[in-house]
């Protein structure tokens, strides 16, 4: 275990500078620009006559529709994260503990394959599987298990399935590294003290892999709430999320100010959530130093 380091800033802190520079130039500056545009009537870069306005934010706050959309977005994000964690963990565990090197490489490929298919193509593949005439429904119908196709697509379920599929590799790979480094003797000690393998897992492996869970779920959550291709294709615009709205605003309504306002709201809410999650996990696990 790492010991609590002495509390002075040390030279290593300097290593953050390149990233800070990158963020300053390529994130804070651009997003700052967007934030400015979200409180202006037009684009100050191209149109000189713009005025301050709060109408974009007012629009979000005044119309419950947008709050509903925000909630849908977060709900999909949370659900995706939970499911990705639930199915990513066993796989990550297997990968971390598999003995054979070839087996490990094969698993790695299997996990990487979905990431490499390309987001659009992958989603189309899901459409093929989930649609009414898709593989799953047709198989079930031909087996006589159902008579009407299940509504797998154009629903939150469909979106979550699609998102989980895309993002579960992030969960798996993040977790694998962490689980792989947990001393197996700790699990053995737990079993020796009478914990079933499952219990030993819950009592020892799980808490010790919290940093991985944290990292993985934050990645997946962040990705899921900002995804728009999958919700568009699998939700068929029947499920509206903030990114989809933003996409609409940018590409079809050309209302950058409003898109920016939506983006900033999404960002702020997510930041708050993430910080809260961090805290909660830290508290639950008693590992305050968790990052």
């Amino acid at each position, binding site marked *: 275990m790492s010991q609590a380091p002495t509390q002075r800033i040390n030279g290593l802190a300097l290593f953050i500078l390149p990233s800070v520079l990158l963020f300053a130039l390529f994130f804070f500056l651009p997003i700052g620009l967007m934030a400015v545009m979200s409180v202006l009537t037009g684009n100050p870069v191209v149109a000189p006559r713009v005025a301050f306005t709060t109408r974009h934010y007012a629009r979000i706050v005044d119309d419950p529709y947008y709050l509903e959309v925000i909630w849908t977005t977060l709900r999909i994000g949370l659900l995706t994260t939970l499911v990705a964690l639930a199915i990513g963990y066993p796989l990550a565990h297997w990968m971390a503990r598999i003995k054979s090197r070839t087996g490990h490489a094969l698993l790695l490929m299997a996990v990487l394959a979905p990431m490499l298919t390309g987001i659009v193509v992958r989603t*189309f593949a899901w459409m093929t599987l989930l649609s009414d005439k898709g593989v799953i429904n047709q198989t079930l119908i031909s087996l006589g298990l159902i008579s009407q196709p299940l509504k797998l697509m154009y629903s939150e379920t469909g979106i979550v399935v699609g998102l989980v599929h895309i993002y579960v590799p992030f969960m798996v790979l993040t977790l694998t590294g962490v689980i792989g480094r947990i001393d197996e003797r700790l699990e053995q000690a737990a079993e020796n003290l009478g914990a079933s393998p499952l219990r030993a897992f819950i009592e020892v492996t799980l808490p010790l892999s919290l940093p991985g869970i944290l990292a993985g779920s934050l990645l997946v959550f962040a990705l899921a709430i900002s995804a728009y291709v999958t919700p568009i294709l699998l939700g068929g615009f029947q499920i509206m999320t903030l990114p989809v709205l933003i996409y609409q605003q940018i590409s079809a309504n050309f209302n950058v100010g409003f898109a920016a306002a939506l983006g900033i709201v999404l960002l702020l809410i997510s930041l708050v959530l993430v910080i809260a999650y961090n805290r909660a996990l830290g508290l639950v696990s008693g590992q305050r130093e968790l990052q």
Partner: protein
Amino acid sequence: MMGTSAAHNPSLASDREAASRQAAAPAHAAVGPRHYGRYVYLAINIAILIFLLAPIAVVVVFALNPTPFIQFPPVGVSLRWFEKFFASRDFMHALGFSLEVALFTTVSATILGASAALALARGNLPGARLIVVVMLSPLMLPAILTGLALFQTYVLLDVGRPTWGLVAGHTLVTLPYVVRTTLAVLHNFDLRLEEAARNLGASPARTFFEVTLPLIKPGVLAGAIFAFIVSFDQFPVSLFLVSPGNETLPVTLFNYLKFDLDGTIGAASVVSIVLAFLVVIGLDRTVGLRSYVKL
């Protein structure tokens, strides 16, 4: 003969060890002590693998199926979409360009991200936890907005749409992966190993490369793999930042698919997968992906 209290004969010990090393291949008992749980465990994992791979199978079928749309059951096998993909100069150019961008992105994101993680985990920076969260922001903002914002900035700075601008944009959206995955393995790192290295005369830099890096490699590597794939697959940011004639593969594919939704994009996916598999195998042979060492 005589002998006083020597320790046990060393040559004897090593002979025995040598002999045992040559001993027959380990006759492994197939069944571990926990077989029931084992089956459940395997079953769950295999189900998950099926979930992960089913859509890939569809894509492969799509790529091999001669009809220009996804059809089940497939009507035949043809390589026409592959031919089309490889024959297209646009696709080939885009593929090359994407690889190039992804490569640069991976390198920059990995270096920047891993050092940032190190600084955050070890630098005793005030507010490190907040910084860590903020560094996740580029992922939480819909990338289309990030892309537009970057585009707007480049216009403002009058730099046009240079390749480095694209790489910078990609680095921005891939950096969080590297930071997170690296942080995750830096947690629980046994600092005494670094102390041992320092004690043996390794400078802090040397210690980092000789001990810290190899041990956090799984995290950094996972981050690098993410960076590469995310950059290679990056679409919304690229959309705004690619310049005419220098389009990345996803942009080209997307534009293609808006008009011709045929097996070519399936073929492109299959090619990407195979390509990445080669990279994975290569990495496994050289760096060894299974690098987390039992402590």
